[in-house]
């Protein structure tokens, strides 16, 4: 007789994402391992397998003697339904064993709208949601990822958080668990010890007290817990672990290619960008090591495409040296080399021409704001001139498709700034008319606006989010100024970004909202098919939460912020200074034109910041 899971698989979409068994998957004998880690990604297989961080830590943990790390992803709705109908608990791909039987359950959380997936996966696994309801060392639940730079909305559900880059700290955390398990420690004893590892934050060691107006009155460390937890970083990327034997999915994923990270950190300092500040300082990886990694990755995976990734690849100093080596290798082996997020400078234009694989359809800019004034406020140093010059060259070279991304609701934005977007778009159309190689083919301009979400650890962390109604008014205002048929304008619905704003700057009082929404079926919120705002709206109301407190209110400069316990390297003083410069419309040059003194270089002991 066919076992249950094999009866379910034919009934669900894309069953291969639930079975494991891909090339380079790591299997170990359960009798020969001491610590089993279920590494959970709170979204589907196709998204999770595209995540480089997960691939790094999967490799790091499996390199450890006596440790077996396996992968777990969120099931799609059809599979979830079948699991519930048949009482099947969530399983890990490699062994197909239930997650609840693992020693450690780890999550990597990259965006706020995955929070419902985190809780839903814990429910599907049969793990008690609240940390206080889990009493044993076995089944300890922890998390890392950029969302843990403000983990407070999740604080009730996790035993601890691992902040920053995990290549080294994860090994320390898991090795300590190995020791604790052998010695028969209690969960309390382990938490006490693990909190001594730099970068580890145990939320239950802190008490959050509130004022009558709802703002934080104090954050009290208990039993001698440290007042600040500083994120971890890897100083020397050349010596750091890099997974060159990566799992090759047997079914198509979102980024179905080899992905090579060329450096970490960002020199730009766009004031809205969380990654730009929280991933500092800048650390380089040498072109020689990168080239070696690239060849190994390609040979071990059989991929026919490789992408050079980072927050801003044009800013990688070794880009010319690396691409000079890689282009011949790639053309000999019929491999597409893709270099995304190039800036509009001269070298990048030359490089784009050399990369023959660049399809003539795609040219994307993210000016973020429509006027130079507002771009100065957000410190996005992309000028109209640069955009139009690049467009002119591209149109002359045969391109006829441009994507332009903007945000609405940025601090100090006026209707003039909103209409500046329309102006810029018409200038792009005019440029096309003047330079197009083939005017018979129409130009297509895709314009998209997103709803600005203020994020922790950025100069805009104190800012107000505009109301959803005001956001929609600005969208309509802009739409009313697009007359040309060659413009396609899309704007995001405000609900998701409003929720994102609530949780991004949220505190511990949001835990009941998360729990309530998940119990009522919230999950896969990043997917239009499943996102249901009314579930969230009801949960927020039921829990007596005022969403405006976290969104339109704005945070006071002398207010205690929920994430004040967490130090990402960039000082609050610097963020405040940047905020004030934004208000004055003063730009801060990128880090290569002079250090602005963000403070992140203090995280470095062996090397200097490579900005």
């Amino acid at each position, binding site marked *: *007789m*066919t076992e249950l899971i*094999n*009866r379910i*698989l*034919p009934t669900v979409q*894309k*069953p*291969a994402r*639930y*079975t*494991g*068994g*891909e*090339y380079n998957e790591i299997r170990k004998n359960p009798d020969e391992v001491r610590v089993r880690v279920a590494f959970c990604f709170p979204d589907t297989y196709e998204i999770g397998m595209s995540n480089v961080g997960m691939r790094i830590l999967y490799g790091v943990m499996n390199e450890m003697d006596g440790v077996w790390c396996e992968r777990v992803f969120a099931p799609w709705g059809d599979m979830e339904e079948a699991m519930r109908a048949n009482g099947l608990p969530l399983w890990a791909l490699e062994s197909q064993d239930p997650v609840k039987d693992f020693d450690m359950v780890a999550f990597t959380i990259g965006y706020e709208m995955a929070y419902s997936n985190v809780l839903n996966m814990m429910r599907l696994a049969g793990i008690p949601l609240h940390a206080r309801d889990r009493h044993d060392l076995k089944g300890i639940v922890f998390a890392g990822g950029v969302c843990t730079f403000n983990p407070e909305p999740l604080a009730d559900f996790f035993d601890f958080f691992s902040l920053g880059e995990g290549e080294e700290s994860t090994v320390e955390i898991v090795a300590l668990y190995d020791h604790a398990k052998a010695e028969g420690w209690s969960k309390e004893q382990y938490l006490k010890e693990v909190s001594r590892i730099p970068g580890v934050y145990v939320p239950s060691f802190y008490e959050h007290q509130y004022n009558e107006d709802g703002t934080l009155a104090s954050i009290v460390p208990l039993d001698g817990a440290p007042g600040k937890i500083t994120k971890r970083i890897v100083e020397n990327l050349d010596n750091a672990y890099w997974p060159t034997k990566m799992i*090759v999915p*047997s*079914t*198509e994923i979102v980024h*179905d290619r080899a992905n090579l990270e060329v450096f970490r950190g960002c020199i730009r300092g766009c004031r809205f960008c969380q990654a730009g500040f929280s991933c500092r300082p800048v650390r380089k990886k040498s072109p020689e090591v990168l080239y070696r990694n690239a060849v190994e990755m390609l*040979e*071990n*995976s*059989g*991929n*026919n495409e490789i992408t050079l990734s980072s927050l801003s690849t044009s800013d990688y100093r070794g880009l010319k040296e690396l691409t000079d080596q890689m282009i011949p290798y790639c053309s000999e*082996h*019929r491999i597409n080399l893709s270099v995304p997020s190039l800036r509009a400078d001269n070298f990048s234009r030359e490089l784009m021409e050399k990369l023959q694989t660049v399809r003539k359809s795609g040219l994307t800019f993210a000016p973020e704001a429509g006027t130079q004034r507002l771009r100065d406020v957000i410190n996005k140093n992309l000028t109209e001139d640069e955009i139009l010059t690049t467009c002119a060259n591209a149109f002359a070279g045969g391109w006829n498709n441009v994507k332009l991304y903007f945000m609405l609701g940025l601090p100090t934005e006026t209707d003039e700034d909103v209409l500046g977007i329309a102006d810029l778009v018409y200038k792009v159309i005019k440029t096309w008319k003047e330079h197009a190689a083939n005017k018979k083919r129409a130009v297509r301009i895709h314009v998209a606006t997103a709803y600005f979400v203020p994020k922790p650890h950025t100069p805009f962390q104190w800012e107000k989010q505009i109301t959803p109604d005001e956001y929609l008014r600005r969208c309509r205002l802009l739409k009313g100024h697009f007359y040309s048929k060659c413009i396609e304008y899309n704007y995001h619905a405000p609900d998701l970004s409003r929720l994102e704003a609530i949780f991004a700057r949220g505190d511990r009082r949001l835990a009941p909202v998360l729990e309530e929404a998940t119990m009522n079926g919230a999950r896969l919120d990043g997917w239009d098919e499943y996102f249901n705002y009314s579930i969230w709206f009801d949960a927020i109301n039921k829990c007596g939460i005022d969403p405006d407190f976290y969104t339109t209110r704005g945070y006071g400069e002398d207010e205690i912020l929920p994430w004040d316990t967490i130090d990402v390297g960039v000082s609050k003083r610097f963020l405040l200074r940047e905020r004030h410069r934004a208000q004055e419309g003063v730009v801060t040059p990128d880090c290569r034109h002079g250090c602005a003194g963000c403070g992140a270089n203090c995280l470095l002991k062996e090397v200097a910041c490579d900005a």
Partner: protein
Amino acid sequence: MPRLLFEKKGNAVWISHLDLMRLFQRAFKRAGLPLTHTQGYNPRPSVSIALPLSVGIDSSCEILDFDLDGENAANGEIRERLNQALVDGVRVLEVYNEGQKIKFLALLDCVVSLEYDDGASDETVSAIQGLFGREEVLVEKKTKSGEIQNQNIISMIRRIMVSRKGQNTVELRALICCQNPTLNPMQMVAAIEKYLPDRKPDFAKCSRLEIYDNNETIFR
């Protein structure tokens, strides 16, 4: 063009046809066996699989044609190198310099297992035998253009044997048309569900065993 015979079993049965093509393209690359590429705007490595296999069906007789780019490895070596580079469940059985023309591929020997959780009975066996003994059994089929057509499946079944296997399973062993016209073996299950609703199995699965030309000679 060289051809290989492979099997697809175990967890690999959940890999779709398109994903399997990609999987082979990468396996050739990992094995150090570069493929020639198709001409055109978007060159693709030249591999093609003769009869796309539905997800969930296992097979011991899949055919894949490929074209190596200036590589002179012996057939046995190609097989070994590919098997090193493939995933569990997909295994190359044999490599041939040249295959028969695909248009001569006509018949498929397959087995369909019908599982009855409360036990399979001899009455079920005879009822199913009776059904496939009819002149006409019409089953709905969705055509490529999306319309629903009624198809007489009897004319596409050259031979069928129905028997009980153990307590819970009834097995259909059938030689059926697999090209011009094509009968999806699971259509036989659909026929049972339609004509013998009381004998609807709790679960059905299928395996491809062997492929033949129209004279029932093994096709390679």
